[in-house]
C-alpha cells in the first residue's frame, strides 16, 4: 500500500532523512523506534505534506500514486492520516464543524453525497462510543483546553471518523497514563482491518504491548538501520540505543 524509496528530506539546508526505504502492505502494522532527533517525526511530516521540509530525493508511492505530488488535503482524502504528537488547539473552531467539514470534503473527493446534519451526528455518536471519547469534548473548540490525554483520544476519534487506509501514530503514547493508553490503543485496534495499515512511531516498547506490530524498524540518523519482528522492540528496551550505535560502529 505504501512504498518509500530512498527518501531524503531537509529543513533549512540541514538533511534529516538520509535515504529511507520502507514497504508497508495492507493489513500490516509497522513500528518505528529511534532516539531523539533521528528523524521519526520528520518522516511523519514529510508523508503528510508539511511544507517546512523539502524532499531532495526519493519517491513515495501510496495506493499506486505519487504521494509527494499531492497537497496535504488530497493526501488526507486519499486516506493518509496523522495522529499528531502535539495536537493543535484551534480556539473558535468547533469540533462538530471541523469534523463535518472534514468528513464531507472527503466524501466530495470520492464523489459521494455529503452527510446531512442528522446523518453526521449519528455517525459521530457511533464513533465516539467506539473510541470511548467523552461526549462533552466534541461540544468544544478543537483541542482547546483539552488535557494531554484528551487530545490524544481526540486524535483517535478523528481517525475513526475519517477511516484512513494508512495511519501514522506519532508518539501517541507520550503523556498518557496507563488507562488512557489502553483506551487509545483499543481504539486503534478496533479500527484495524485487513485493508488498512499503520505506522506507529514511539520511543517505548510499552505501547507495542497494546498495538502489536508486524515489523519493528529502528531509525537512526535519518536511516532505517535495523528491521525485525516485534521482539526487536523488547531487545531495544533492554539494551538501549547505545547498543545500536555500537553495532553500527563495528
Amino acid at each position, binding site marked *: 500500500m505504501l512504498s518509500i524509496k530512498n527518501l531524503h528530506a531537509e529543513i533549512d539546508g540541514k538533511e534529516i532523512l538520509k535515504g529511507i526505504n520502507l514497504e508497508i502492505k495492507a493489513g500490516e502494522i509497522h513500528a518505528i523506534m529511534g532516539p531523539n532527533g533521528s528523524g521519526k517525526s520528520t518522516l511523519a511530516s514529510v508523508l503528510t*505534506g508539511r511544507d517546512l521540509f523539502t524532499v531532495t530525493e526519493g519517491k513515495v508511492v501510496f495506493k499506486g500514486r505519487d504521494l509527494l505530488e499531492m497537497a496535504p488535503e488530497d493526501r*488526507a482524502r486519499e486516506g493518509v492520516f496523522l495522529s*499528531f504528537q502535539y495536537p493543535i488547539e484551534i480556539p473558535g*473552531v468547533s469540533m462538530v464543524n471541523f469534523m463535518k467539514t472534514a468528513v464531507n*470534503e472527503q466524501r466530495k473527493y470520492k464523489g459521494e453525497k455529503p452527510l446531512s446534519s442528522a446523518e453526521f451526528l449519528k455517525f459521530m455518536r457511533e464513533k465516539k462510543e467506539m473510541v470511548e471519547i467523552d461526549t462533552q469534548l466534541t461540544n468544544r473548540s478543537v483541542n482547546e483546553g483539552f488535557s494531554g490525554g484528551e487530545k490524544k483520544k481526540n486524535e483517535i476519534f*478523528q481517525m475513526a471518523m475519517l477511516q484512513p487506509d494508512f495511519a501514522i501514530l506519532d508518539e501517541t503514547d507520550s503523556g498518557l497514563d496507563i488507562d488512557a493508553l489502553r483506551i487509545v490503543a483499543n481504539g486503534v485496534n478496533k479500527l484495524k482491518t485487513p485493508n488498512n495499515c499503520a505506522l506507529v512511531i514511539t520511543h517505548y516498547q510499552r505501547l507495542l504491548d497494546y498495538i502489536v506490530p508486524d515489523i519493528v524498524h529502528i531509525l537512526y540518523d535519518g536511516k532505517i538501520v535495523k528491521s525485525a519482528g516485534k521482539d526487536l522492540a523488547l531487545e531495544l528496551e533492554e539494551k538501549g540505543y547505545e547498543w545500536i550505535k555500537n553495532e553500527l560502529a563495528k
Partner: protein
Amino acid sequence: MNLEEKLYNIYADNKDKLNMDIPDFIREYADIAANSIIKNGIPDKSYENYKYSDFSGFLNNGLEYSLEPEKTNIDLNEYWQCQVPDMDTQVILLSNAWYYEKNNLENKFPKGVIVCGLREAFVKYPEIVKKHYSKYLPQNKDGYIDLNTAIARDGVFIYVPKGVKIDKTIQLVNLIHGFANRAVMQRNLVVLEEDASLRMIICDHTLNRTQNFINSLTESYIGKNAHLEYYSIQNEPDTAALLNTLCFYQEANSHLTNLAFSLHGGSLRNNVYSTLAGERAHSNLYGLFLSDKKQRVDNYTYIDHKAPTCTSNELYKGILDDNARGAFSGKIMVRPDAQKTEAYQTNNNLCLTDTAKMRTKPQLEIYADDVKCSHGATVGQLDQEALFYLQSRGISKKEAKLMLMFAFANDIVRNIPVIPLKEQISGLVDNRLRGEFTECKHCLLNCSRNR
C-alpha cells in the same frame, strides 16, 4: 483658499438656507463650529489622532453638499426590505441623511416614545434637544465634528421616556444616492431616560459607485439604569469615505454595548467616545473590521472613566488582506475620582499578506490608585500549525483559512445577544470573508453590484 476656508464658506454661503426655521441655540452651535473649523483646522496626517486617516482628498474633490431635504421620487419603503428575519424590527429610512418623509411610525412604539427626524425635533421638542444636543462631544476639538455641527441638519431623533423598554429593534438605514460625489452629514440624537432600554442598528448604504464623503455623528445620553445596544454596520463601495463618530454619555448603573462592523469601504474611520459619568456604569465596546484591496480602516476610541466603580470592556479585531491599511488607537482614561475602576482593552489583528499593514496603539492613562486595568494588542498571521492541522484532515487550504478567519472574527460576532441578529451578521461576515457579496438575502437593491 485652503480647505478650512472652503468648508467655512459652504456654511457661510448657505447659512440662510441651513438655519431657516431652527431654534437660535442650534444656530449658535453652528456659528461656533464653523469658526472653529478655521481656528482649529480639519485634521490631516499631522494631527496625532488622525495620523492614519486623511479625508482631504475627498473633501477637495468638488463634493456636492446635501444642504436641504432631498426629494426622492422612488418609494423607498417599497424597495426596502432589510428586516432581519425572525426579529421584530422597525426600519427608519434616511435619504442622504435627511429623514425620509414617508417613514410611517404612527403607533409603532409605546406611548411617550418619540422617533422622528432631528430637524423636526428641533422645532417640536426644543427643550429635550437643548438639554442634550452638542453636550456629549469630546473636549478635544475635532474638525470633522465641527463640520458636522455646522452643516448637518437632520438624522434621527429618538427619545425613550423613563421606564420604557422598546422591544422592537430600530434599524436606521441611511441611503446615499445621486450621481454626483456627495458630502452627506448625518446627525443623530438618542436619549434614554432612567430605566429605559433600546436596541438600534445603523446601516449605511450607497447606491451608486460615487466618491462620497459621509460624516455621521451620533450623540447618546444613557440615563440611570438604562440599557442601550448600538450596532453600526458599514458596507460601502471602494470609492466612498465614511467617518462615523459616536458619543455616549452614561449615568449610574447604565449599560452600553456598542458593536461596530466595518465590513467594506474605501476609507472608514470610527470614533467612539464613551463617558462613564455615574457609578457602576458599564461599557462594552466591540469592533470588527475586514479590509482588503486598497481599503483603509481606522478606529479611534476614548473611554473616559469619570465616576468610581465603573467597568469597561473593549475588544477590537481586524483582518487585513491584500494592500489594506488598518489602525487602532484606543485610550482608557481613569480620572482621579474613578476608584475601583475595571477597564480592559484588547486589539488583535491578522494580516493575511506581507503588504497589508496594521498600526495599533492601546493606551491607558490612570490617575486613580485603586483600579484594575489592562491593555494589549497583537498583530499576526494565520497560525500555520493550525492551518496544516486542518489540511491534514482533508480540508482544503482555502476552506481552512476561512475557518480560522471566521473563528477569529467570531470573537466579536458571538457577543451579539439576539440570535437572529447574530445569525444575520454572522452570515454577512462569512460572505465577506469568502469574498462574496456582502448583502442581506432580502435586500433588493443589489448595491453590492457596484463594488
